[in-house]
């Protein structure tokens, strides 16, 4: 537009026409998905109206929590859940590291190997811990071993992906320097890549452990050990006060784990 030309009726807009169109399409799809879901989902309307009353009734039956059952039936199962989470995390991280190195494009220069590693990581991430648990219970029988392996295999996906992303974000300078000095591949990894990704590595291990503590608690529902089995028993016997006690102990453990992770992260990173 030249200065002094006829005044053009033009309004300033933040986004281009294409961007506005794309945003509009996203909104349209969301609204369509919600409307379609509401119309087709099989929900009985009476149940929705009844829900608050039923929930209040459930809570009333849960009170007071049965503290007497804690030493005999909950304590050991709860510790088992934490063991499952810890051992599972360690095994998962050990299995994830090689795939993380193979999936990082700057560490492994063969594209086909990158893709194979990525496929493994995506599959591990997409199969839920509970599905792995069903599988390992079928293979090894019910118990903590099945739960631990389920946690370990599902963790591979998460840890491996984030670790390979951390590797890809490393600065190439030190690595080139090492290569130029004729360092063998093992030294390039341990002196070039490793020191650069150590903080990210510990932070994601701690984060995964925190998630795994929560996940290890559900595993008992499919027979894979831990406090979930105690919960399942209490639920099946309609012992609501004991259910309440188990839920309270889970809440305490999960919050304690989160506090511990935050404290450790502050100290070592």
């Amino acid at each position, binding site marked *: 537009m030249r200065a002094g030309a006829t005044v053009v009726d033009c309004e300033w807009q933040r986004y281009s026409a294409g961007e506005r169109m794309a945003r509009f399409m996203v909104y349209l799809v969301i609204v369509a998905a919600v409307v379609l*879901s509401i119309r087709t989902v099989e929900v009985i309307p009476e149940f929705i109206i009844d829900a608050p009353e039923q929930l209040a009734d459930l809570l009333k039956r849960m009170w007071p929590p049965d503290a007497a059952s804690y030493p005999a039936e909950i304590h050991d199962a709860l510790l088992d859940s934490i063991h499952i989470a810890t051992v599972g995390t360690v095994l998962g991280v050990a299995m994830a590291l090689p795939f993380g190195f193979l999936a990082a494009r700057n560490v492994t220069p063969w594209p086909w190997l990158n893709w194979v590693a990525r496929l493994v990581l995506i599959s591990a991430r997409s199969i839920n811990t509970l599905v792995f648990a069903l599988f390992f219970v079928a293979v090894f029988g019910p118990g903590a071993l099945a739960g631990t392996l389920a946690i370990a295999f599902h963790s591979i996906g998460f840890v491996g992906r984030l670790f390979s992303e951390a590797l890809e974000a490393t600065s190439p300078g030190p690595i080139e320097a090492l290569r130029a000095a004729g360092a063998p591949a093992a030294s390039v990894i341990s002196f070039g890549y490793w020191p650069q990704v150590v903080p990210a590595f510990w932070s994601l291990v701690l984060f995964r452990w925190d998630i795994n503590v929560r996940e290890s608690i559900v595993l008992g529902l499919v027979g894979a050990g831990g406090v979930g089995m105690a919960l399942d028993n209490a639920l099946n016997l309609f012992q609501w006060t004991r259910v309440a006690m188990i839920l309270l102990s889970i809440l305490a453990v999960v919050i304690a784990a989160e506090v511990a992770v935050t404290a450790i992260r502050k100290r070592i990173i």
Partner: protein
Amino acid sequence: MATAADRSFPPRLGWPARLAWLAFAIYFAYALSHLQVTPARVMAGLEFGYKFLVKLFPPDFQRWELLLKGLKESLEIAVLASVLGLLISLPVSLLAARNLMPAWVTWPARFLMVVCRSFHPVIIAILFVKAVGFGALAGILALTVASLGFLGKLFTEAIEEISLKQVEAVRATGAPFMSVIAYGVVPQVFSRFIGFASYELDSNLRNSTMVGIVGAGGIGGTLFAAFQRFDYDFVCAIILSIIALIIAGEILTNAVKKVFRA
């Protein structure tokens, strides 16, 4: 001063770190002994696992109508729970933001979110199944509660990081509270909210395929039933379709994030 000895790899550990590693090693050994792993059990398991894997293939898609019905229900649960969770967590996260609200308001809101976040969605689903009966409603409510926990936390953190200058400027014009929120706060956090919400949709999609295990609707119920009937080729078909659904969801939410540059 760095000496040659300091440059060794791995770096020399101080005493506290050595003790921490030792303590962890002892704990790890103790926890491992709890698993009761014996060589015989591992061998039997490996043999059984091999048979199991053979039975999984080829996947059996003959009952694709049942499969599709379950996947559709999972998708509906995920969509509705994400929207409901989003609608509830917006006001709750505003209440929990320490830079906008007084302490006596933020603490109850924060406590609510911690409780919602602490329980796995499947455990919440059990409670809702007992309260409102089997079916999709229990799944929707359970995932809504879980979404409130996670979205609420992420939203609160985003709101606490905003610049207060713009809020003050809007306030100085004499704008009422809702206008301060709409013109001072929301524009600063909108694109991050879109990112968090699409992340939550992703994670709800994963969990909506699982809540069926405890009877809260979706493909999980079909999966669990097939497992219990040793119908392993159908199990394989279900798992493959769940993976496909989750990957499709991930591609879709990435596209949405790109549109909003979140």
